[in-house]
């Protein structure tokens, strides 16, 4: 089982779009996939028409895998399950803080699911919290959508700095350009500059597309209703690129 996190310190960069479309692409590729919606907003959960869970199974001495399994919902797509978002996530950090080995609880939880799934995609909320550190320690790849703007570049640098400060393996961080516009001068300039500063950038660029916003109307992955649009093709290419990185293609 491989764990892919869709993460950024910054909000509104396309994390949820990545999680939804990457999960869908994985299941279409034949991988038994679980999408874990860790964001209390529950956007990924909404996109798959799944209801948020009433309570997330948080316990005093560790996260409960039995409760987690019970909360999993099968999506409309064969091979793709969803662990829906929960309002309880607001208390996630507090709950984790009270646990032993509080930085590795998510990893322990994911290990319990290793026999059930080939791939897990974590849709993470923004921020540098204790939950984020759990995500860093649990993930095989940290996929970071970066809008080619100065602020996005800055938050990417903050993520690398956090990894360095906490002795985390920075090679798991794989940024890629998201919502990129080739007609936008600043975007093209930064798309040339940032990869020189951060060489781990993935090749695939996900363009800005109105179809991505329409996912909210269709409540389904972009590949299901507009498979030939550039963004849909980019997500498909991105899934192949990350699978190849982990030797799973």
């Amino acid at each position, binding site marked *: 089982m491989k764990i892919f996190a869709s993460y950024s310190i910054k909000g509104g960069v396309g994390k949820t779009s990545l999680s939804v479309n990457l999960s869908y692409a994985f299941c279409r590729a034949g991988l038994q996939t679980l999408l874990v919606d860790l964001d209390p907003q529950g956007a990924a959960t909404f996109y*798959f*028409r*799944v*209801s948020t869970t009433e309570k997330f199974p948080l316990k005093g001495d560790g996260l409960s895998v039995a409760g987690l399994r019970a909360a999993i*919902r*099968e999506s409309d797509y064969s091979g793709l*399950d969803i662990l829906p978002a929960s309002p309880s996530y607001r208390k996630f950090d507090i709950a984790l803080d009270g646990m032993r080995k509080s930085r590795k609880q998510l990893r322990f939880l994911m290990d319990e699911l290793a026999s059930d799934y080939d791939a897990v995609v974590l849709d993470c909320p923004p921020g540098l919290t204790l939950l984020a550190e759990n995500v860093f320690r649990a993930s095989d790849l940290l996929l970071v959508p970066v809008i080619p703007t100065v602020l996005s570049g800055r938050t990417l640098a903050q993520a690398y700095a956090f990894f360095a400060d906490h002795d985390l393996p920075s090679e798991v961080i794989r940024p890629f350009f998201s919502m990129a516009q080739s007609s936008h001068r600043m975007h093209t300039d930064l798309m040339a500059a940032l990869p020189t500063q951060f060489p781990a950038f993935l090749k695939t660029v996900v363009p800005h597309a109105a179809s991505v916003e329409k996912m909210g109307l269709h*409540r389904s992955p972009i590949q299901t209703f507009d498979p030939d649009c550039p963004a849909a093709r980019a997500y498909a290419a991105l899934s192949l690129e990350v699978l190849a990185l982990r030797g799973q293609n």
Partner: protein
Amino acid sequence: MGGAWMEAFGPGARDFSAPSPDPTMPSGLVLSPRAVEEFDVEVMDTPSWGLWGSGLVLFRRDSSLALQRAGALLAEAAGPSAGGFFWWDLRKSELAERLGEASGIRKIEPVARLRVVARDYEVSNADGKVVFRFVVVCAGGAATQRVFVPRPLRGYGAEAAACCLALGGSDVREGGLLERALADAGVSPHLSSGLLRAEIGPGLPAAEALRRVVSPALKTAWKNEEGIIRDTDTEFLHDYRVSLRKARSALGLLSGAFDAAGVSKVRDALGSMAARTNRLRDLDVYLLARREHEDSVPEVLRPAVRGLFDGMSEERAREQAAVASALMAPHHQELKQEISALFDRPDGLKPGLEAEVPIASAVSSRVARRHRKIAKLARELGAEPADAQLHAIRIQCKKLRYLLEFFAAAVPPAAAILEHPLRRLQNRLGAFNDAAVQREFLLDLWQHAGPELSNDRAVALGTLAGLLHAQGAGFRAGAHRALEALVSPSLLKSVRRSLPAPDSFCP
């Protein structure tokens, strides 16, 4: 080829008893019909339903074969799109291997053709999320034979339960969809152990008991004739010969139940019918073991052995045509009807002196006598028994086994005591006899071949005959040990004690 339609034939299916094809769903849930698939499948089996008897069902859809057990797909493979086949005609695969275990040397043929209609449905909640799926499957065309296969989605158990309730949802009725569809197609799987066990109480008069044994044996023999004529597989001839032999033996074993002259005429006729097929059966036995024989000789002799078998194959084709022609001949058909008529009703044959003797009395004295006779023959065996002596014991054993098989219900304790030791000895004597017959067959070929027999074929014949001789010697040793067990003083005593006194059933 696998899919929900196949699961419809398994225990996971539920009876679809909703009042309409598109039933009303529980409140808040919306039903959406999806794809409909309609196709024909053939159910394939051996003439003796060997697959069915092993809990297997083989489906053929065009040239795809799918083997299932209890609705679960076991294996798939490509196969011929029409007609029957033997398992060894298929390419090596798991499916071929499983078929080999269950069908043996019997041909696998279509036994029924079913029209299957599979309709997919989805049920969604108010958010448009699919919460339950199911497939309604109809096989054989009749509306009463609809079942549905639930496809619950993880995390939506409550919705699945509510939907199943709305669809009917009870476990599938006894027999299942396949049995009902087959019945609708006029097909009924019939399993036979090969044993002849008529309903015979200990007090039944011997003549009536004998009639109840001979009549079904004859029916079985006649039923196999079609397979022999079509040359479906070699087992039709085997079963035909066994049935004739059983009918003939029963008449001989209970001589006295019917008038001797009438019995003698029938036995002669049945003997002639069986004898007409002797050569064909010998060739079948040899050709069935063709690969085994080819593999048993050195590489250098294999072309010569292949040549021998090719010659046998050609002879078999001629012999089969001759047997088929004899079976279709009008006088054979008339003879069959005449013989059948004698046993179809109680007064067909003139009664004999023992006609009214209770069957238990008649059989118990014969069982004791046969058992003692085998013991006597065993005592006469020297350190190196002759083939003829073992042959004589084999014949007596066969008669004893037939007595116990036909009339087990009349002498149940003796039948139970003797069953295993007798079967063990018969298996060994049978193997010894088969090796001897095959060896003689080869030597006969050699003696009648004349000067045109090439050197390499002569060597091949000699090698095979030598191997069979050695094989026979091995079986002989095993037979000797099994014989000692059958005629041990303790077993003789147990059998004697288990048999009722000769007059205990006299009215």
